[in-house]
């Protein structure tokens, strides 16, 4: 795990993201007001010596946003443990990620996407970074006259076309929603298809600004089913996968709505890498450059001498006791 998390933090710092360090706990009120932003509602709480209710930190972004100042652009990266309820049990989850605070322009958004893609590549060469834009989905829902936007977003996230169409009251929905869900993943082809679904300048403008950001980063793919919570996210959203890990290992996007909810006047973007989901992918199996075998009668100083030489030469080494009957 240290192997990957250290490399990711180093990557972000080389792009000007300063290390953000936090204490392990914060006032419960910060999180209770924004429970929906957290992947799980469960928190570990306790009472501080002055009577305040505290929580072991279940999230990093909320803390960074709370400390941000309007009108000040800041770039932070982190590698922190957060504490959540997972499958009904309190769990420590390690996350690395970054946040760009302060109305990210297209270049900044592309930079966030690039770092997300490079983060996935650092974990595995067989990876996918899927991106979408909630403004496109919101515009489509409006055109389709959707009866329940929250449920519509959920069904789009499941690639459940028939379920999504059940919520549409406009006859144009089948072509529009079916087109979006069936759009090619290659960004240039997807852009062409989305323009073909246009109903005017507003749609074209949203599609154009989204693909301008996405086209700048080789390796991104379009997928309208990437949907993070629209109460918090406001535009570009992303999810990253690596082969062999069954769930997304990276998630994020532009979270202007969260900023608004927290009383901030600017937007922000970022992502988190869920290091706990990587399992064996986070660190290669240990393969020593040299193996030192020893028996019970061997002189320890001779064995230690071999180990020391290997380490001083910069290699790796493992000592292995040999059983009598081997």
């Amino acid at each position, binding site marked *: 795990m240290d192997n990957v998390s250290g490399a990711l933090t180093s990557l972000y710092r080389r792009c000007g993201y300063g290390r953000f360090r936090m204490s392990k706990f914060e006032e419960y009120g910060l999180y209770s007001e924004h429970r929906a932003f957290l992947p799980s509602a469960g928190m570990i709480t306790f009472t501080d010596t002055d009577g305040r209710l505290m929580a072991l930190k279940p999230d990093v972004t909320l803390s960074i946003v709370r400390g941000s100042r309007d009108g000040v652009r800041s770039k932070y990266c982190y590698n922190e443990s957060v504490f959540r309820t997972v499958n009904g049990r309190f769990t420590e989850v390690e996350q690395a990620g970054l946040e760009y605070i302060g109305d990210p322009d297209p270049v900044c958004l592309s930079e966030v996407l690039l770092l997300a893609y490079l983060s996935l590549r650092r974990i595995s060469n067989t990876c996918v970074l899927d991106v979408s834009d909630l403004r496109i989905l919101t515009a489509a829902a409006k055109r389709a006259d959707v009866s329940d936007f929250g449920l519509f977003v959920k069904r789009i996230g499941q*690639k459940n076309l028939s379920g999504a169409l059940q919520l549409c009251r406009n006859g144009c929905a089948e072509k529009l929603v079916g087109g979006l869900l069936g759009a090619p993943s290659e960004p240039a082809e997807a852009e062409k298809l989305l323009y073909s679904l246009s109903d005017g300048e507003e749609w074209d403008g949203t599609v154009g600004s989204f693909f301008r950001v996405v086209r700048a980063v080789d390796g991104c793919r379009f997928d309208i089913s990437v949907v993070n919570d629209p109460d918090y996210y406001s535009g570009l959203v992303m999810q990253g996968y690596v082969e062999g890990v069954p769930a997304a290992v990276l998630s994020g996007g532009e979270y202007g709505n969260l900023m608004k909810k927290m009383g901030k006047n600017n937007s922000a973007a970022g992502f988190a890498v869920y290091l706990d989901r990587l399992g064996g992918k986070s660190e290669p199996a240990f393969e020593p450059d040299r193996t030192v075998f020893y028996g019970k009668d061997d002189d320890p100083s001779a064995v230690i001498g071999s180990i020391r030489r290997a380490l001083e030469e910069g290699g790796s080494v493992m000592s292995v006791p040999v059983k009598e009957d081997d």
Partner: protein
Amino acid sequence: MDDRRILNLALPKGRLGEDVCAALSDAGYCAAQSDGDGRKLIFDGDGIRYFWVKPSDVPVYVERGAADLGVCGSDILLESEPDVYELADLHRGVCRIAVAAKKGFRDDPGKTLCVATKFKNVARKYFDSAGRQTDIIKLNGSIELAPILGLSDVIVDIVETGATLRDNGLEVIADVVPVSARLIANKSAYKFKTDLIKALQAAIQTVTER
């Protein structure tokens, strides 16, 4: 064969699984064979590895990535809300979840309604949306017994023809949601086996939408 070219498909044991096998066979896939006594759980054929699993476990196998694809009833998806793609309605195993009670039952809104069900989450959401206070009892089988023995006022259960309810002196008092079999996919597997999954989805939809 390279594991990346093999699709792992979790099928529900029982009639629904057999129906889906027949549909896959019609769609040109070498479908899984049941070995009669149901002891053999894995079959290989035409680049697909089939697993026979308990119906309620299908989403677990798929969400956790042990299976790339699975077939299960939408009732199970509504109850467990797994983080998977729901790719197609297979129009098999069509039925509904409904509220049923003893014939002549009259609901008293002034009292907490006692509900027996194996679909706790579906029942809670349904009655919450109606603003009805409930005491929900989770049962795992023979749900129809609950109102007969006075364990509950009503039940929330799968209803296909209504014959079981009638045989036990019960009747449907409200429909909750229609149910049918769905093709589901693991989100990560979908990213890396897209062509294989889309081909199987298209083939089986061609058959099931006839």
